[in-house]
């Protein structure tokens, strides 16, 4: 580099040397816009099909330029996490920083290389645009700034959850999943974009974004407080919830590897790390000081019944819960094995509910020990929440043999401590989670007794396509040595000399018809025999509505085998409400949601 001496005077002729410029090419660009660079941040486009309406773009927008508009022609589905909201962008605010592009969980919103927009003074409406697949003027331009792996602002990968290895867990009923450590939980919670899709999807509308936020901030008590606002079964749901929320989670909608937030495990983490006394304090918050003088009977101490009882007690009513079994919890206790939901956790949930003032009467069978009519006489309102505690049978040939049993009956025996007849080999019919539960429970019992597992599970449904049980369950079952035979329909239980020897199945060719309705087709040529000392049927459950008594059954309106209720769970009989599995099908969180609904309606009814 040439040095210029400060003391030089310079020359007046120097600039003239630049006359050579007349011989150089001009640098002027032709009129009209040039092509922008490959990563240019120009006007937005939005793939309306990819967009799920999570509003993350709106929240990240530093200029409040994004308005969410409702597009009625797009279908909404809360359970799948789809809203019909789509972003509209105000170019009177936007600064083209592309943060909306980088945060979009589904990479729907992107930027093009288009950058020229002018309008007359009275046409400012053109500054408010609704980006679609084409940009602001409807022309298609090449894409500019799109999300790359580096620019992605979201953490796509779920923190791994520690699990017991299959060898360690197969001979006991200890809980399989380790749970998060504080560090992992905070990291996992930090992934949440607070879109609220989970809250919309959750039947009980648990404030998941709020408690995830509290966990991120390390305020677990606050998190538990948020949970108890909507769910007194937080321990249970933190472990065995069907987590529709995670299906809806906007992070799970991403392309490629993109896991939803482990909302269920976070809930579990918060619940496990707040002391019981503290939880009891939290649960009592908002309890009415004054007693209302009204009393309510709840039949069945399952999640639905107890949630209703919990809410009603907090409103100042007197609630008595009648339970036919020696302990409360319903299916969560007598249907879910300990390795998924340890009993002490359930006990704690129930203890907290009782501590608020819910009175549970155990071993009282309504219908025999006390009649419905009597309940009505003693109380102002009655809630039926007896669940689906009876198993269905396939009623194939040989299914009336004593070694052909129903899964729910067996599952009930294990926590009750009854002696279970453990067979050397067993076949389970059914592909739902109940089938998995019984198969895995029996596997554990077999391992304890014989040192080996010999369980075969046959299901109509096809693995990976139509299978009913959760993928996790299937994976863990396979790890535990259970063989799963999918797409097989039961033909008959083979009985020789009055002794059960096994099950015959045929191949299922297809299972659903064109309309998506169930219409299985069998191929009789493909016949298999599975040797077994016991056949366990886990195909479906039903409710024992006989306890209502004939008179009440006649008085009630029914809807396809279930008690007919309105949207608040109120039956056609004025003093009777029904909630939970028996009216809504099996699901804990649905039952809890139902409990709330019913409680709210009863309270309204009683205050009328």
């Amino acid at each position, binding site marked *: *580099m*040439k040095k*210029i001496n*400060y003391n*030089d*005077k*310079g*020359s*007046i002729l*120097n*600039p003239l*040397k*630049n006359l050579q*410029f007349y011989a150089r090419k001009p*640098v002027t660009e032709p009129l009209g816009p040039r092509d*922008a*660079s*490959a*990563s*240019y*941040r120009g006007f937005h486009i939005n793939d309306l099909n990819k967009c799920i309406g999570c509003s*993350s773009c709106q*929240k*990240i*927008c*530093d*200029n409040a330029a994004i308005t969410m508009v409702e597009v009625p022609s797009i279908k909404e589905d809360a359970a799948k996490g789809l809203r019909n909201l789509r972003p509209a962008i105000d170019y009177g605010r936007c*600064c*083209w*920083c*592309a*943060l909306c592009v*980088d*945060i979009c969980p589904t990479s729907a919103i992107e*930027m093009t290389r288009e950058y020229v927009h002018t309008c007359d003074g009275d046409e400012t409406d053109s500054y408010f645009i609704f980006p679609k697949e084409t940009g602001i003027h409807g022309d298609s331009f090449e894409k*500019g*700034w799109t999300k*790359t792996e*580096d*620019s992605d*602002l*979201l*953490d796509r990968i779920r923190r791994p959850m520690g699990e017991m290895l299959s060898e360690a867990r197969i001979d006991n009923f200890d809980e399989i999943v380790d749970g998060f450590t504080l560090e992992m939980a905070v*990291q996992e*919670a*930090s*992934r*949440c*974009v*607070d879109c609220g899709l989970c809250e919309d999807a959750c039947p009980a509308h648990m404030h998941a974004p709020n408690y*995830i*936020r509290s966990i*991120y*901030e390390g305020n677990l008590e606050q998190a538990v407080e948020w949970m108890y606002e909507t769910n007194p079964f937080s321990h249970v749901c933190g472990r065995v919830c069907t987590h529709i929320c995670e299906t809806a989670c906007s992070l799970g909608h991403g392309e490629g590897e993109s896991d939803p937030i482990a909302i269920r495990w976070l809930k579990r983490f918060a619940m496990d790390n707040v002391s019981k006394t503290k939880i009891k304090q939290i649960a009592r918050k908002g309890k009415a000081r004054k007693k209302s003088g009204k009393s309510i009977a709840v039949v069945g101490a399952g999640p639905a019944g107890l949630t209703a009882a919990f809410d009603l007690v907090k409103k100042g009513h007197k609630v008595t819960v009648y339970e036919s079994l020696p302990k409360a919890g319903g299916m969560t206790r007598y249907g879910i094995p300990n390795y998924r939901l340890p009993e002490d956790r359930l006990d704690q949930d129930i203890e907290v509910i009782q501590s608020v003032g819910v009175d549970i009467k155990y071993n009282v069978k309504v219908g025999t020990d006390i009649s419905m009519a009597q309940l009505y006489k003693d109380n102002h309102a009655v809630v039926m929440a007896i669940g689906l505690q009876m198993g269905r049978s396939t009623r194939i040939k040989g299914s009336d043999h004593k070694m052909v049993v129903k899964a729910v009956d067996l599952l009930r025996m294990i926590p009750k401590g009854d002696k279970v007849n453990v067979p050397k080999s067993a076949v389970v019919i059914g592909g739902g989670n109940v089938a998995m539960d019984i198969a895995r429970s029996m596997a554990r019992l077999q391992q304890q007794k014989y040192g080996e597992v010999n369980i075969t599970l046959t299901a109509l449904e096809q693995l990976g396509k139509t299978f009913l049980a959760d993928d996790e369950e299937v994976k863990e079952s396979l790890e535990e040595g259970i063989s799963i035979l999918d797409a097989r329909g039961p033909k008959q239980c083979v009985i020789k000399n009055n002794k059960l020897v096994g099950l015959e199945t045929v191949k299922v060719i297809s299972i659903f018809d064109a309309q998506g309705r169930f219409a299985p087709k069998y191929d009789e040529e493909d016949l298999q025999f599975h040797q077994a000392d016991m056949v366990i049927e886990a195909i479906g459950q039903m409710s024992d509505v006989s306890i209502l008594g004939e008179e009440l059954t006649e008085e009630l309106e029914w809807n396809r085998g279930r008690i007919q209720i309105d949207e608040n769970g109120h039956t056609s009989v004025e003093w009777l409400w029904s909630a939970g599995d028996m009216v809504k099908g099996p699901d804990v969180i649905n039952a809890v949601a139902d409990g709330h609904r019913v409680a709210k309606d009863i309270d309204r009814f009683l205050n009328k």
Partner: protein
Amino acid sequence: MRPENYQAVKLGDSNEYEIFIGPNHPGIEGNYAFRLMLDGDIVVSGKADAGYLHRGFEKLMEGRLWIQNLAIVPRICVPDPAPMEVAYSMAVEEIMGIEAPIRAQWIRTMQLELSRVAAHLFTFGGHAATTGMYTPMFWGVADRDLVLDLFEDFTGGRVYSIYNIPGGVRRELPPEFLQKLSNLLDYLESRQNDYDNLLFTNQVFVERAKGCGALTQSQALELSVTGPNLRACGLAYDVRRDDPYLVYDELEFDIPRQKHGDAYSRILVRRDELFQSIRILRQIIERLPSIKGKIRTPIPNPLSWNVRKGEAYARVESSKGELAYYVVSDGGDKPYRVHVRGPSSMHAVQTLEFLAKGARLEDVAQIMFSLDACPPEVDR
């Protein structure tokens, strides 16, 4: 106001009169005003009048999420926006206790130097224009535009890159980028003679600039003058070397200086600095391909990102001087306080007022441009 209401009032006997320069005035850089008390054409005293570009940045930043602020910080100094992003990101990183990956630091360094090149080219033109020469302005701005093309290439934006993010940079360099950069540097070096002939050794300019707005070193230190303006007074002080950040301690570069502290010294320092930046960029072109790895340290999802309690004072050397960000976090999802210490806040107010005293009216614009003051840094 109605014309019939005008009423001429005779002033006193003094020869002094007050005139305004700006905010709409070609001799003022940006939207800035200066009030002068004149005796003849000699300035008796001057008073800066700022605030025309005041947007309340510091207040705005307290109301936005940590990451959202990245979009607004470059706006604080328009001709040289990159150091703003980097300084803010560095401050946040220091509070969080994380460090950007090495590759990101190299890319940031490259961005800073490119930005410096662009800013200096812009200043040459502006400075020359205040002395009545418009050709350097046409050249400088056109050459600067070539740098902006490169910015557009790797950051997606021409002027406002919004390329940094606490923890690194947002995007990998596009393919062939370093080759393009190298070509540009070749071109800029080839232009050196043109600029020298046109401006730096042009007698008309040299005579105008020499001795105009001279500062001694001790005056400069007293007024907290930094950057090229301080180096023009003979003190070889540069934040890049004395308080090293990013990868400047691995790079070789000289710190150009002059002794006289006047407008000509200042523009010569900038000229030399431009070529030092080119030298740095050449080293980066050489080293960058061998530095592999990630370009971002992960940060939590920005919508729920609490930065832990703490404070940091991050300083960088912008083309104007020492630029610093003082960021305070109370553990929330937004900064509790961000203070921007723009170098021009020293240059454009007290230093300018000091230098204007006794200067001639026609030199005031040149003095201001030679200080390379950026009004929005004063106003924020």
